[in-house]
């Protein structure tokens, strides 16, 4: 399971970099979306996949009795998702405004501020 997920994460990273290297700013934002998902999935996978063991303390016990899934990565991912959501919402508005102001969605034509 973990091996397969590792490939999935790698594939997502590769896809996001590919999209970000395209010239269209819409594809750039799609690349950013995939990138944040890839990072989230990576956290999920590397901190260990445990199936069917919720982190619950049985009645009467004072601590967990057997190995359980680590709840912390999920909290991290949830936080990261919320942050990524707000940042990407900004990015989407930004490319729309940029398209209106510059009049093109081609990154190669947005070179005024370089050199």
């Amino acid at each position, binding site marked *: 399971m973990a091996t397969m997920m590792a490939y999935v994460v790698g594939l997502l990273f590769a896809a996001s970099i590919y999209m*970000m290297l395209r010239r269209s*700013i819409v594809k*750039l934002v799609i690349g*950013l979306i995939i*990138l*944040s998902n*890839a*990072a*989230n999935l*990576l*956290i999920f996978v*590397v*901190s*260990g996949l445990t199936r069917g063991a919720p982190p619950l303390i049985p009645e009467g016990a004072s601590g967990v009795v057997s190995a359980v899934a*680590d709840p*912390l*990565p999920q909290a*991290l991912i949830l*936080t*990261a998702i919320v*942050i990524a959501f*707000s*940042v990407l919402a*900004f*990015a989407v508005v*930004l*490319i729309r*405004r*940029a398209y209106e*102001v*510059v009049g093109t969605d081609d*990154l190669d034509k*947005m*070179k*005024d*501020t*370089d050199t």
Partner: protein
Amino acid sequence: MNLELVLPILIPLTAGALSLALWRSVRLQRLLAVLATGLLLAAGVWLLASTTDQGFLVVEMGSWPAPFSIVLVADILAAIMIVLTGIIGLAIAVYSLASTPSGHEKFGYYPLMHLLLAGVAGAFLTGDIFNLFVWFEVMLLASFALLTLGGERAQMEGAIKYVTLNLFSSAIFLSAVGLLYGMVGTLNMADIAQKVNSVDDPGMITVVSMLFMVSFGIKAAAFPLFFWLPASYHTPQVAVSALFAGLLTKVGVYALYRVFTLIFTQDVDYTHNILLWGAALTMLTGVLGAAAQFEFRRILSFHIVSQIGYMLLGLALFTPLALIGGVFYIMHHIIVKTNLFLVSGITYRLLGSYELKNLGGIYRQRPYLALLFLIPALSLAGIPPLSGFFAKFIVVRASLESGEYLVTAIALLVGLLTLYSMIKIWAEVFWKKVPEHVTDLSMLNGKNQDKLSWAYFVPVVGLATSTLIIGLYGQPIYLLAELAAEQLMNPQLYIKAVLGGQST
């Protein structure tokens, strides 16, 4: 509960929320901006006094014991950074009273400024690596909005590059945090520092440290990851440029200082050697880039990159003296660089351009302004007795003592080229005659009825005075940097302060 540790985050956050509530009254927002940044500075000074007194201050959020809670930690370096944040915040708030167009003020300029300061302060004070990521994002989101406020073409183009590269760096940071958590199972920085040495596969720790280096390197604008900075920093209005120039890249530098002195110290030969050459190339490319530019703020932007190199050099050499130099350099640089941007804003107000070919004749009309430029400019280049001289002197001496002669030579050469850039600005903007194609001289010779506001000059004079004080009365500052460096060289103290001496 150490109140002074929480205040630097709470003050800007509260002020930001209040400014939002006062959306309709720009006047109250302005008042609040100056008041809150002044309070931030006061809280910073209080924090610095406490940390020099007690060494470390720790607050555990929600009173859960570390490493389970998120902790706020202040050592002397963090306290110094908070004081500098306060100084720059106050300077920018006062300067904004005069320079910010009213359209920007009505669209939430002040709330965003407060949130940016809160993000910066949070990043300096947190002791939890994931929390650091969160503060970075708070800071970034505010900076995105500030950068695009106004919505001009150049801003949009600059913002796309800025946003993309910073989000990319955040994704790398997040991945690195995830991988590190997978290996050591904790997020508390002190706890990580304690546990990285007992990981089965130390090579993997070095791999993760490289991810951190790339991510923070993008944020600090180190070679070869700096391209977003000169493409975007000259686009927003000048107070925003100055704020970014002073604080944002330094947050990246601070993060590098934190993780590469506390956590990733097990393979110093490898990691810090990469940092060393990165620092040398950062200095060199930055200064050469500036030599090719003929726009006031773009020259200054490239110089941010080259100066970052000196700070990284201090970290990369990793000797006590080098760290002292690095910390001293950060203190000097934040003040001087912000000041130069503020001066560029005044010349823009006088002649309506940042292009060197459209500027000139300011020395004849406003000699005091020329003097105000010369102080930070010569300080940046490292002319004694200004602050930059001592900062460079310590770093260069540390690198000589470490036997890195080539890097020392580069550092000295870069100092010379910095002087060349500053002289270029001096000759073009202040010394030469007003170009003939510039027709609107009413602001310059004072015949226009709106005069230059006092709010332009108060922060510039204040920051120039600080430069002089650091230069002429440097011993206490040096001692402060020495204390900070001592703590950085002994991560055991940090670990003990956070975890209370408990062993694994």
